[in-house]
């Protein structure tokens, strides 16, 4: 999403996700906050963090060459990892069971309530995001900005406000993803964000970067490829296959499988 609006690949996204997971862990274990409090509080805290990162690190570079912003993003990722290492230590932590886990079944198909919650909430959040970008005036402004950021202010659009808002939503949602992953795989560590960040990037590339539906489809394709490759090859080949797929797609369909080539204004 941040890429869609700003043409900036936020390589720190995976680490924001990790920080989200740790924030939830902290809220739950030190304040014994229940799930219904942890989620909005984590979202708000990390959204604020995202806004601060944009203000301090990215905004000064907005008119600098793109590569400066990419290097900054990588540095922010490292910074977040190191901070977490210093504060929480390198050893993996047990993520608290915020939601009591039990089996539920739908006409014979069994699933855990946590899985249902995660999938349901993800679908709702993505649909909401898609609707927001498609229908609201702010969403329109985000799309306009991605097309032509020079003209947008001439229509009264405050670019800084829209960019801050985009970062808030993008990082807040990454934090929620961090909570979900903590619920599903309840052991978290400071490096959990790296592979996840890369996979999110691969999904986005597969689906056509900047498109929400495309990223979801890309995520599914990625998951299926991983499962199939794990079934036939030693599981350590999994990541190699995934990133090989990224290279192949970038070669043959640089706009993604479902993406329309970006015909950016000249």
């Amino acid at each position, binding site marked *: 999403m941040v890429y869609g609006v700003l043409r900036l690949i936020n390589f720190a996204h995976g680490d924001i996700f990790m920080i989200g997971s740790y924030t939830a862990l902290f809220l739950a274990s030190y304040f014994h906050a229940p799930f219904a409090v942890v989620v909005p509080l984590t979202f708000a805290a990390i959204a604020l963090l995202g806004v601060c990162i944009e203000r301090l690190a990215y905004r000064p570079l907005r008119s600098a060459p793109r590569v400066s912003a990419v290097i900054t993003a990588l540095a922010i990722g490292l910074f977040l990892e190191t901070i977490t290492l210093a504060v929480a230590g390198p050893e993996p932590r047990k993520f608290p069971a915020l939601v009591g886990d039990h089996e539920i079944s739908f006409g014979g198909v069994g699933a855990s309530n946590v899985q249902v919650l995660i999938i349901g909430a993800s679908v709702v959040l993505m649909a909401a995001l898609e609707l927001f970008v498609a229908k609201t*005036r702010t969403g*329109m*402004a985000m*799309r*306009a900005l*991605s*097309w*032509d950021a*020079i*003209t947008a*202010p*001439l*229509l*009264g*659009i*405050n*670019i800084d406000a829209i960019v801050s808002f985009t970062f808030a939503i993008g990082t807040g949602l990454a934090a929620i993803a961090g909570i979900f992953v903590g619920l599903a795989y309840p052991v978290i560590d400071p490096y959990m964000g790296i592979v996840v960040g890369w996979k999110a990037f691969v999904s986005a590339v597969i689906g056509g970067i900047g498109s929400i539906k495309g990223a979801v489809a890309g995520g599914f394709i990625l998951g299926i490829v991983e499962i199939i490759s794990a079934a036939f090859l030693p599981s350590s080949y999994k990541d190699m296959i995934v990133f090989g797929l990224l290279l192949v797609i970038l070669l043959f369909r640089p706009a993604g499988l479902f993406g329309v080539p970006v*015909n950016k*204004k000249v």
Partner: protein
Amino acid sequence: MNLLHVDNIVAGYGPLTILHGVSLAVDEGEIVCVLGANGAGKSTLLRAVSRLIPLAAGTISFRGKSLARVRPHQAAAMGISHVPEGRGIFGNLTVAENLTLATFASHTSGAPRVSKVYETFPVLGQRRGQLASTLSGGEQQMLAIGRAIVSDGDLFVLDEPSMGLSPLFVKSVFSIISEINKQGKTVLVVEQNATMALSHSHRAYVLENGKIVAEGTSREIARDERIKKAYLG
């Protein structure tokens, strides 16, 4: 008091100075045109007015208020509707969305003005659900002017509205500009098409290499031998 007062401004891009002390004034209700060859600094002048580029020296005031610390989105909200060179259409948005966006600058609901735009330009009404990138050049120019109508500023700043249009279309664009002016809007328009601009404006300035070299009523300027030679062929 002038609606817009540009006083001795120096501006450009980074170390590159383009405008070397330009002054001009636009009174309420006027159509003022700025003529100049390619690269004279016409677009740069308009960008300075709508605050897209900083000033190295000089002042710009709008309704008597200094624009020194005003940012472009604030200038738009104060009533400066800048239709940029090349139109600045958002091609990834529909025609209707392009018009809706223009309500960011106005503090009121734009719905009545959007309907007015569809009345003025029926073809935009027919194409309202279409992506703006699919419009023809002329239709895009209508959309760009339409957006300024929705923004509802007091000063329309138009950068070469005739660019790339057929002679017939240029005529209708200028008659729309006159119409907008009759409805109370002040217009500052930059043009290469001197004949058209001079016959549809009250006063004119001539910009050469970042300096104003002539000014007067459009009639005087149209009769000036030197200008005739340079701009009227």
